[in-house]
């Protein structure tokens, strides 16, 4: 059990919570919140691994986590637009009602 183990377990906890939220939430907004939780856990695990292992380049780890953050921001923007479209078309954003493709 090293410090790396603790940090990886914390990020695993974030992943598990995000996954549980993704299953139980009924609306797109709640699912977006859960996905952000999971992405945050991914960034944390990347930084923990790169900063703890001596052979790894800490700069690369931090930059990778920054890219994950950028992707999360882009994803949140797109999901907001999708939520707007779904709200306009279906009048609600519950996943049960958004089931037709066209």
């Amino acid at each position, binding site marked *: 059990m090293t410090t790396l183990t603790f940090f990886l377990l914390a990020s695993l906890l974030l992943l*598990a919570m995000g996954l549980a939220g993704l299953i139980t939430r009924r609306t797109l*907004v709640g699912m977006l919140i859960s996905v952000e939780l999971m992405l945050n856990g991914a960034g944390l695990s990347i*930084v923990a691994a790169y900063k703890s292992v001596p052979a790894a380049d800490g700069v690369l780890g931090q930059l990778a986590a920054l890219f994950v953050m950028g992707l999360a921001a882009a994803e949140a923007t797109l999901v907001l637009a999708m939520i707007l479209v779904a709200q306009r078309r279906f009048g609600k954003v519950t996943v049960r009602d958004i089931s037709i493709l066209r």
Partner: protein
Amino acid sequence: MQQEASNIASTLLEYIARPLRALQEWLSPYLPGDEWAAYLAFAVYVLVILAGGFGAILSRNLIRAMLGLVLTFLGVAGMFLLLASPFLAFMQLLIYVGAVCVLIFFAVMLTQNTDGGEESRLPSLASLGYGALAFLAPLAVAGPLIVMYAGRVPVETPQPEGTGLLGAGLLSSYVLPFELISIILLVAMAGAVYLAFRGFNPKRGGQNQ
């Protein structure tokens, strides 16, 4: 005058530091090495992450869920500080708390599910069961793997390498990922604007569709 001020400041700091040092001496036999403060901070951050995360996934009010998400982000920012990456911690606050949470808030405001909506009822028992399964499955699969294998890797205490190196890396070795993420952000924003404004007719008083 300045001398007096600094004297007062150091006296005040002494008042804060003395009980902490006493606490350290009292606890030191039970704690691993001199790193007890880091472990304490880690425990606090884990508690903050747990509280915020469960608030985010269980709260029946989406605004409260978003506040739980903010709490989780703060905890992860603290973990970045523990990992000697202060720049990432501030970026976490800027991007996630500053931008993503505002986006989520907009999403909550622009839809009609804040109060008395679909999210305000408890999920069905089957859904809760699936949720518990989804919570336990990653822990059961990856948890033992992490405990078994991550402990074997020799680790060092994370050292800060300076924010300047990050900028140098972005402009030299990793310039291609940097440009790619810029393009992705641009495309995502263009797509979001296109999706939001499709069918928007200014002649009909800005009515959509």
